[in-house]
């Protein structure tokens, strides 16, 4: 990242080679269009390139920051598309604020992979997971989620809060293997999250 901040293309190439597939997967999941996802990824890496000097190592990983940028750009592009505006017609959008950077949990992060994270997500009550995913992947506000799901706004807020806190606990448990699966187990074939589950709160 220091190389990138110093304007060295080689540094950007290294970051791209390491994270491009994850960035593209997230952009594609949000936009569902390859062309738009490519634009988002290009725009995100360029944003990272231009703002590398703002990166604070103690506030989170480069990957976390990049994914936050990708998500921000992808959701923004979808919102603008809904409003009839295309990427590039707008002024430069600010990058995600530092406070949205991930808490890196260094002792945990290294033991998490996609399947373990899906396992942790799958353990959430479905209404909590839906509230989080509608906000994270679809960019809906709490009010829009309430309208879409028919749940009261206060309930949506509560589901988000409980869901995020539960997910944090689940991630730690999954990483520790204390969820009963063991530290090396996998949720085989878990390419999508189940749509059924306990209701949890209400």
């Amino acid at each position, binding site marked *: 990242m220091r190389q990138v901040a110093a304007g060295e293309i080689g540094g*950007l190439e290294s970051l791209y080679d390491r994270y491009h597939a*994850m960035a593209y997967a997230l952009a594609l*999941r949000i936009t569902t269009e390859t062309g738009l*996802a490519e634009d988002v990824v290009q725009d995100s890496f360029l944003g990272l390139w231009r703002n590398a000097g703002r990166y604070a190592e103690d506030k989170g990983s480069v990957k976390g920051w990049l994914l936050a940028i990708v998500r921000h750009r992808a959701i923004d592009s979808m919102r603008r598309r809904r409003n009839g505006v*295309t990427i590039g017609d707008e002024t430069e959008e600010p990058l995600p604020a530092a406070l949205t950077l*991930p808490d890196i949990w260094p002792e945990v992060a290294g033991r998490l992979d996609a399947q373990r994270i899906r396992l942790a*997500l799958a353990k959430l009550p479905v209404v909590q997971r839906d509230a989080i995913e509608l906000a994270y992947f679809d960019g809906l506000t709490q009010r829009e989620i309430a309208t879409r799901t028919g749940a009261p706004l206060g309930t949506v*807020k509560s589901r988000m809060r409980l869901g995020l806190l539960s997910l944090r606990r689940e991630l730690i448990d999954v990483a520790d293997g204390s969820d009963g699966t063991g530290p090396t187990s996998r949720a085989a074939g878990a390419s*999508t*999250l189940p749509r059924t589950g306990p209701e949890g709160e209400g």
Partner: protein
Amino acid sequence: MAIACDRVLDLAPGFVLGALDAADMAAVREHLGTCTEPHPELREMGGVLAYIGDSLDPVEPPRHLRDAVMAAAQADLRARSAEKVAPAAVAPAPISLARVRALRTHRATVWLTRAAAAVVIVGLGGYALAVQGDLARAHQAQDHANTVLHYMQVPGARSAVLTPELGRQGAGDAVLLPSGHVYVLLHGLEPTKGDEVYMVWSSADGGTIARDGWFTVDDQGEGSLEMDNVPPSDSLWLMVCREPNSNVEKPTGPAIVTGTIWVYSVPAPTPTD
């Protein structure tokens, strides 16, 4: 709207997910800008967001995307270099997309070439020009670098890095817009002498090599070419040769730089959720 710490605690889940209404988002940001409390709830909840993204299986993007990202970064780097050359002179705002589109609209409808030695100065060349006090030309360097950058940001734009052939000098970027407009910007070229020109040749989808246009290069080593109405294709291979004159009908001189703009994109997978 000033809010208290308790209110931030209440709004924290929606804030970290970006799911608050605009007014609430702004209120939280305003509070955090002045509050001395650590607000650990934001880090606790925000910390899981990166892992939600990690729940996805990686997807390999089309290979041309890497070239596009690097070409955009290089263009940005050249724009920054030009700014350093003459900050007072090149400080004006970057070219807007509206201007880029206007330029595109008014260009000739046939393949258009433009002699570059007289008009294009970018990157390192800009430094030498500034030393000479030629701020107008340094300004042009900024203008052209910005043009490349903004072309690359046009939705659907595809780009390629043009790299030197073995033992040759020069490099550059090429951008293809969905409208069929192509912009080629080169630097580090050896100056042309006498009737010599740099000729741009292209081949769509591996087909017949076509002559696109030519330019000459002065001591600054920069050159550019613009083309319109390039037929749609999945790939556009570009080759810049140094030719003895501008009348050649097929490549005769050495290839200096080459690159391929990949247009083809893989179909979108079926949504998994």
